[in-house]
């Protein structure tokens, strides 16, 4: 295992802009390249805040600590710079963009990664998109639909996985991708992540979840328990199983 982590979070404090109360309170975390980590925690523990701060959401502000991604501090970077550097956030609540097809959107996103006058070749892009959809067992007509407009919960999450497949991130942050999905939809999403990982074992995944069940389908290298803005326990997959038995009640007192 490489000694330089792809992501290193050191004593991170963060809050909502214009509010005083910290949500993240001295969080530490390290991910080596190619690892899958799961962060589990009760509602309100700050899991989603962590995902948003890592992706650069303008509504949150890091007040102390450091986040080093591939050796560079990223807290000062714009969200688009982070994205172009390989960070991807799969949203808990993907946003609707009426009138913009998924295909058009992805082409624009790939175009944004190019320098100067370089342009995404339309035919290459189409081939690539069809290939990625095939990998995820998706119907090509899906890409012609306007982004998340009228999508079911499952479709929205599959759309996130498709974007991940096309944009090929180095670090995928998955913010409660499993929430609100029935078991079939959950399996489809988990299979998608597994396929992308098989294809690119170097892809690092930080899986944020409330429930243990997605970990039946995606095997994490490490599981962390997050309570009140901090990691309170870290270990192997067994941590998730313990939580499954005991719930978060042990941590309520903290």
């Amino acid at each position: 295992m490489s000694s330089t982590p792809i992501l290193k979070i050191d004593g991170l404090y963060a809050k909502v802009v214009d509010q005083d109360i910290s949500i993240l309170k001295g969080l530490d975390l390290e991910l080596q390249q190619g690892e899958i980590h799961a962060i589990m925690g009760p509602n309100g523990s700050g899991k989603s805040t962590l995902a948003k701060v890592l992706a650069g959401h303008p509504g949150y502000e890091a007040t102390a600590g450091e986040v080093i991604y591939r050796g560079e501090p990223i807290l000062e970077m714009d969200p688009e710079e982070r994205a172009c550097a390989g960070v991807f956030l799969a949203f808990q609540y993907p946003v609707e963009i009426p009138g913009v097809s998924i295909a058009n959107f992805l082409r624009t996103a790939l175009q944004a990664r190019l320098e100067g006058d370089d342009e995404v070749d339309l035919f290459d892009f189409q081939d690539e998109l069809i290939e990625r959809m095939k990998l995820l067992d998706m119907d090509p007509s899906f890409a012609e639909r306007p982004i998340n407009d009228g999508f079911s919960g499952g479709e929205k999450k599959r759309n996130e996985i498709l974007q991940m497949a096309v944009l090929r991130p180095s670090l995928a942050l998955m913010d409660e991708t499993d929430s609100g999905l029935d078991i079939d939809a959950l399996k489809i999403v988990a299979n998608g992540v597994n396929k992308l990982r098989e294809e690119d074992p170097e892809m690092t995944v930080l899986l944020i979840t409330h429930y243990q069940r997605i970990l039946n389908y995606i095997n994490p290298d490490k599981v962390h328990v997050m309570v009140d803005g901090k990691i309170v326990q870290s270990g192997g997959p067994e941590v998730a199983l313990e939580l499954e038995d005991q719930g978060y009640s042990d941590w309520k007192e903290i």
Partner: protein
Amino acid sequence: MPENELIQNLDLDEYKYGFIDQETHVFRTRPGLDEDIVRQISERKEEPQWMLDFRLKALRTYEAKPMPKWGGDLSKLEETLEEIYFYVKPQDQMERSWDDVPENIKNTFERLGIPEAEQKVLAGVGAQYESEMVYHSLKDEWESQGVIFDSIEDGLKNHPELFREHFATVIPPADNKFSALNSAVWSGGSFVYIPRGVHLETPLQAYFRVNQERMGQFERTLIIVEEGAQAHYIEGCTAPVYSTDSFHSGVIEIVLKRDSRFRYTTIQNWSNNMYNLVTQRALVNENATMEWLDGNLGSKLTMKYPSCYLMGEGAHGSIMSIAYASDGQHQDTGGKVVHAAPNTTSSIVSKSISKGHGRSSYRGLCKVYEGSTNARSNVECDALLINDTSRTDTYPYIEIEEKRSTVGHEATVSKVGDEQLFYLKSRGMSEEEAMALIVRGFIEPIAKELPLEYAVELNRLIELEMEGSVG
């Protein structure tokens, strides 16, 4: 991005049609308007007496009508009108070949890409410069089928009976203050006649250019679509940017005979010193279909409500409009549908985008007369606000006299959301790219109806405008 920073960085210098030609004209009236000027215009055009009488009567109607108090701010218009030139003749005669058009004027239209488009995708082209059509041409295959596409002046000269039968029947001078003004001083515009059963496969296009400072352009267009005929007419407008205001007030009358179909597309991209007050109306007879596609991107103030008067059973009218209002702009636009026969159907889809301190208003009328049984109308207006300072209003007027009819109205206002922007940025797009994508998606239902070159142009324009919107 803090809101105030966004607004401070608005940059409207991107208007690429703002270039000014060297001023040349062979004749112009002195600034301002009175009876003598109306007589001069009529005399220059060697008009029959009835037209001079018509003009003079319209002038009195114009003078008698008060300045409208509704819609946009017209409080400074009276001052402006005292200083503008109501008639400027740019060259001696209208030409049928670009080679005969004076070099500087030809260059202007070449910069606007007109001759090129004419060769590639159009059935015919008319080009107006200041007050007169300087060029008009129709491809032989259509001329041989009896299609007439000419300047309005030549329509009056060469087809006096057809002209007089329809002229001012759709929009009488007294309809509103500006239709009266246009009726008094009209100059330029197109006369179009599509004979029975003829389907024009490619569009006709008229292009309107104002070059002179403090200029008033008053084109008048009359279109007659015979039974079962079909055609598409496109109108484009641009002008240089001056510190003083200019004025454009057109009247467009369209008569659709039974079973005919006509589409009128406008892409108005006047400079931001232009008052643009236009009356457009179509009389739609039995089973005919009229479509207005209206893009209002430029001007200082636009007041324009394309109308369909559904006069015959089964007539259909459709109005689709996009309005874009940036700093210093007010787009007061919408549409009117009047149902005056049974089984008539109509739809209005209006989308507006307001940026910076821009304001867009939807103003529309849906009227269903008694006896128009089973009439159906649907109105949908959506407004998108880019900043907290931009403004949008909706003024829908609905008057229904017939119980056995169905009228629907839906209005939405949305603001480009921080979550939408973050979503797109988290995929690698800059704020400008994200904004442009959202706006393009918003207008997509209408943009996809535009001829390709205009759709491309519209997208390019939105990208430019969004580049200017972010600091």
